[in-house]
């Protein structure tokens, strides 16, 4: 096989410069064929997903809005080590660490926790490197199954812990299903 005939994509088409036949040259016949093709599409099933009412099912690995996880006892897992912020190529994450008080043991899993944890969703490129970097399995992009919503102000895209931390009901449900298993 000569080099010219190798097709890596398997979709190579030879260009032919053959003379057009009479039917092709007067266009009318080919136009009619084209009209028939489009007419068939008129009655095809429409592929549109009517978004706010219908949502597309997300694949299990779809990277959407981040979620800060809780453990089986409902405590936040994040220990504010900052590895996620360090690994983030878009520098989207900022946080402020605080020390856990003795009476807060039921709230935070580790002795140090993130008092403020913010992700700028306009900067984030949803690469998932924060998830990979986290030593505490505290941040996931695949769990929330949410797309970051559009908004009017830039400030509104900086998501704090109120939006990021896993809701308690979800944690309770997870714990229960874990116990059953």
């Amino acid at each position, binding site marked *: 096989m000569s080099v010219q005939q190798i097709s890596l994509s398997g979709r190579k088409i030879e260009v032919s410069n053959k003379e057009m036949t009479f039917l092709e040259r007067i266009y009318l016949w080919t136009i009619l064929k084209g009209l028939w093709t489009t007419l068939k599409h008129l009655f095809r099933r*429409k*592929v549109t997903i*009517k978004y706010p009412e219908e949502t597309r099912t997300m694949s299990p690995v779809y990277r959407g809005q981040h979620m800060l996880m809780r453990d089986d006892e409902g405590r936040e897992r994040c220990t504010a080590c900052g590895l996620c912020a360090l690994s983030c190529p878009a520098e989207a994450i900022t946080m402020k660490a605080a020390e856990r008080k003795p009476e807060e043991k039921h709230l935070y899993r580790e002795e140090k926790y993130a008092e403020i944890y913010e992700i700028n969703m306009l900067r984030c490129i949803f690469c998932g490197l924060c998830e990979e970097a986290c030593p505490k399995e505290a941040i996931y992009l695949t769990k929330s199954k949410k797309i970051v919503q559009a908004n009017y102000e830039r400030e509104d895209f900086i998501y704090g812990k109120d939006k990021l931390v896993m809701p308690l009901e979800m944690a309770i449900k997870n714990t229960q299903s874990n116990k059953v298993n």
Partner: protein
Amino acid sequence: MDSVFIIEKSAIIVAVFALTMLMAMYSTWAERKVAAFLQDRVGPNRAGWGGLLQPLADGAKLFTKEEFFPNTPNKFLFILGPFIAMSTALITSAVIPWGDKIHVFGKDVLLQATDIDVSVLYVFGVLSIGVYGIMIGAWASNNKYSLMSAVRASSQMISYEVAMGLAMISILMMSGSLSLKEITVMQANDGWNIFYQPLAFIIFLICSFAETNRTPFDLAECESELIGGYHTEYSSMKMGFYLFAEYANMFISSAILSVVFLGGYHFPGMDWVNANWGINIGAILGFLALFAKICFFIFFYMWVRWTIPRFRYDQLMHLGWKILIPLAVINIIITGIVMVLFK
């Protein structure tokens, strides 16, 4: 007597005007729907049921947009452009016979604004003025893209008007009259022109695409080369008028195609309906028949738009001067020979 006449004609004129406006409005909606359906999408569906209020929303939007004037010495002409485009698009409808006579208040009322005996010439005359709207507006925009578009539009219209007129001549030879009403009556008696003059029909159809600046002949406003063409500098309702005029034109040329080639308000079995159910019902059914034909042609315009890509400029001129005009002339000759042989 005179005042009755004036009232009767005014009513018809207002009705025709309203119908043209309504059709132009809903053509914009239909265009999007057809475009969407041909591309396996659903099209506008938010404003009203099935997006039916979309044209109103568009109108409100165009009215409230900022009125922008480019830096041009010809402010007056700049405003005159859309004005001419819109008026010429609307006044063509005056001579179209919308239906046969109806009998109301003890009087025969002809469903036509005016039945002048040179209506075909009138239509062609108004159509040729239509290009001034584009030319003047584009010239006054002081923008090179607009100007190029105007040059294209006018040369295209001039070349296709010739072929259109020649195709029309073969019809006139058969009808022996320049009145659209007479042409319709003749078709009601002898059968539709499309069966006698298929070649003239095809030429006329292609030329109407060029005359209304629709794809595949929309070189005057091809976005990929000329931004928006002649309406590049226009905004707000002046822009709206241009767009509106295009759809009104489409409606009118569909009407003319239906009247000249598809028998106008004639439908099979019209005589029977007239004899048994009365002429009023006959006229209304006739109007509906005409309306259905017009809708078909409007759909056809859209269908073609989403099927064929735009012609290149030289192809356009080649098609107009070297193919359509000779074909139209040959058609006239054949029509003449056949008429001499069989009459």
